[in-house]
């Protein structure tokens, strides 16, 4: 019985795929972690893509084609990433937005490349853009650029002499932390401590107590806002006077809520916030997202992926073509596109260009004040 039923299900889904093709439809895939530990990020990416597609369709679609969104949950895992890529390619998608984790992105990359499906992901691992896939576009700036700016700010501008660097064990956070540590040393700075926290474990008092005993001027954290806010709160609780500097993933309104009264004075390094950009598109997208879903986007990566999709749609409209080769070629020469996460472009490796970093300070009312920009 069981086998029969399973075979029936399998048969139905084989037949079902490939039926809806042609017509005036262009399919955009979303490969993202909809469940599991990164569900928050994945669902944000999905929501942003659906919103953009709806807005574009309301304007008459993309070159007259109605955009259809196909979502595949990769759970943030490499195995599922490869399966999703296969599924989306099979579904005949034109481009794929996502995914979030470097592991799932890299497993999917060769599959999209072979099928000539454009992929835009925020995956930060350096290798993603070093493998020669012309279909891949990283929509978040590389760690190295942010690390260089951060080191310059800490060492050359603020002249901190005792720097503690903290990361979690994720690919993104460890990569950014390592790059920043190296950049600080290159600039002649002094890293007195390099440590790790377990993301989501909430108890960071032990690591902070250790850091306290080393008397730092500044604590730099390269992880996510949910841990960053807690680190800041626990730092204040322990009475550590050092300045807290967080990497880009700390920029989230929730940071200040979690950190509570300790949030004030925290410095965050990132590309300009949408609200601070000199053009309307950024603010409009944030407002639309809030209106549609009732909350702010869960993280900066929702916005960078939205930018990836916006850039692809822009390229299609400019080239008046749904030919992936033409669109890819256009994207590889794109410069200073008005991204909602700052000016955006891609080099020939698909690496994001054009994002100028800034250091903001969180004010008492939760707003940001720009301290220094590139």
């Amino acid at each position, binding site marked *: 019985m069981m086998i029969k039923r399973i075979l029936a299900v399998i048969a139905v889904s084989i037949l079902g795929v490939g039926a809806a093709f042609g017509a005036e439809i262009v399919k955009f895939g979303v490969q993202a972690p909809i*469940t*599991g*530990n990164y*569900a*928050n990020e994945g*669902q944000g990416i999905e929501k942003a893509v659906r919103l953009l597609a709806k807005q574009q369709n309301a304007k008459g679609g993309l070159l007259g084609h109605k955009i259809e969104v196909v979502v595949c949950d990769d759970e943030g895992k490499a195995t599922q990433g490869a399966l999703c890529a296969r599924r989306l390619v099979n579904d005949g998608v034109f481009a794929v937005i996502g995914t979030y984790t470097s592991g799932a992105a890299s497993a999917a990359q060769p599959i999209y490349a072979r099928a000539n499906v454009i992929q835009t992901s925020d995956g930060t691992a350096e290798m993603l853009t070093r493998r020669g896939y012309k279909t891949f576009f990283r929509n978040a700036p590389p760690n190295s650029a942010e690390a260089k700016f951060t080191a310059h700010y800490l060492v050359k501008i603020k002249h901190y002499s005792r720097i503690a660097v903290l990361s979690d*064990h994720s690919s993104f956070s460890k990569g950014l932390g390592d790059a920043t540590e190296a950049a600080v040393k290159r600039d002649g700075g002094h890293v007195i401590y390099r*440590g*790790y*926290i*377990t993301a*989501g*474990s*909430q*108890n960071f*008092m*032990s*690591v902070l*107590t*250790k850091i*306290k*005993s080393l008397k730092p001027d500044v604590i730099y954290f390269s992880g996510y806002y*949910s841990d960053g*806010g*807690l680190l800041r*709160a626990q730092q204040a*609780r*322990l*009475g550590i006077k050092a300045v807290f500097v967080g990497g880009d993933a700390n920029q989230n309104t*929730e940071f200040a*809520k*979690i950190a*509570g*009264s300790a949030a004030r004075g925290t410095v965050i390094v990132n590309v300009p916030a949408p609200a601070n950009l000199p053009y309307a598109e950024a603010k409009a997208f944030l407002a639309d997202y809030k209106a549609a879903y009732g*909350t702010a986007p*869960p993280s900066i990566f929702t916005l960078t992926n939205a930018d990836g999709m916006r850039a692809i749609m822009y390229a299609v409209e400019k080239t008046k073509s749904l030919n992936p080769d033409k669109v890819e070629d256009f994207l590889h020469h794109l410069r200073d596109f008005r991204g909602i996460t700052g000016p955006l472009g891609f080099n020939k490796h698909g690496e994001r260009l054009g994002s100028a970093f800034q250091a903001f300070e969180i004010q008492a009312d939760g707003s940001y004040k720009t301290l220094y920009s590139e």
Partner: protein
Amino acid sequence: MELSTLLQQLVNGLTVGGIYALIALGYTMVYGILKLINFAHGDLAVLGAFIGLTVLGGQLGGGAPPAAWLVALAFIAAVLVVSLAGVALEFTAYRPLRHAHRLSAVVSALGASMFFENGMMLIWSPQTRVFPSHILPDITWHLGGVVLTFTQVLIVFSSLLLMLALYLYVNHTRFGTAIRAAAIDQDAARLMGINVNRVIISVFILGPALGAIGGLFIGIYYREAIFNMGWLYGLNAFIAAIIGGIGNIPGAMLGGLLLGLFNSLAAGYISSSWQEAITFGLLILILLVRPTGILGERVAEKV
């Protein structure tokens, strides 16, 4: 090495250890009776945090500290809802499997964990949820170089107190005697006129209730909760129960506090990047020396 740093690490470790211990008590009680590793227990604790958040959340707008009665209501609601969920879990997922191979119930527990975790994601969103501030009095003591807060003291003392109450209840009341009897031999207990089902239900009320208190303490102390944090706390509490000797109530307390201290000292003095590996290494060492945990006795396994 400064003395104040060491003392601070001990304070840090004891606070987390107190939370682990509260959750470990539930693990160990269920295990004591059913020889079942209730993998959904960590998620039940997190459910407690979210119920508390929902009750307290009504105050969020004003920024004023929530009234004392509201805080009490949060704890009561968390305890009620979570123990109800615990009993429902026992009825639907564990009771039908009581006489099956014991690993069937373990897999049922894993399914239950998945159910609760994803259910909480659907209800409370996958986002980190923030608790209101100043739920408990913001009192901070500076003793030498050591910082101590009222919440920390409260967590450690209430976990000790609850453990002690549970211990006295199990060892010095009639119903407690029934619990112990059922833990040793259910069939014999039944022959002695003990209603074993009632005993088991009581365990699935007490354990989750303590877990809910632990979960709400997590929310109040760290001021945040996220749907998937049950695994990490559940695993740590389970390890704590094993270290102390699973099935043993003071053992769960001891295991929780020791684990908290290990974690703290490992992160502070050895290496933060290897902290969890050090913890697990220590656990393995303890088990090699004392194969049934520190206070555990050798008990026959139900097969």
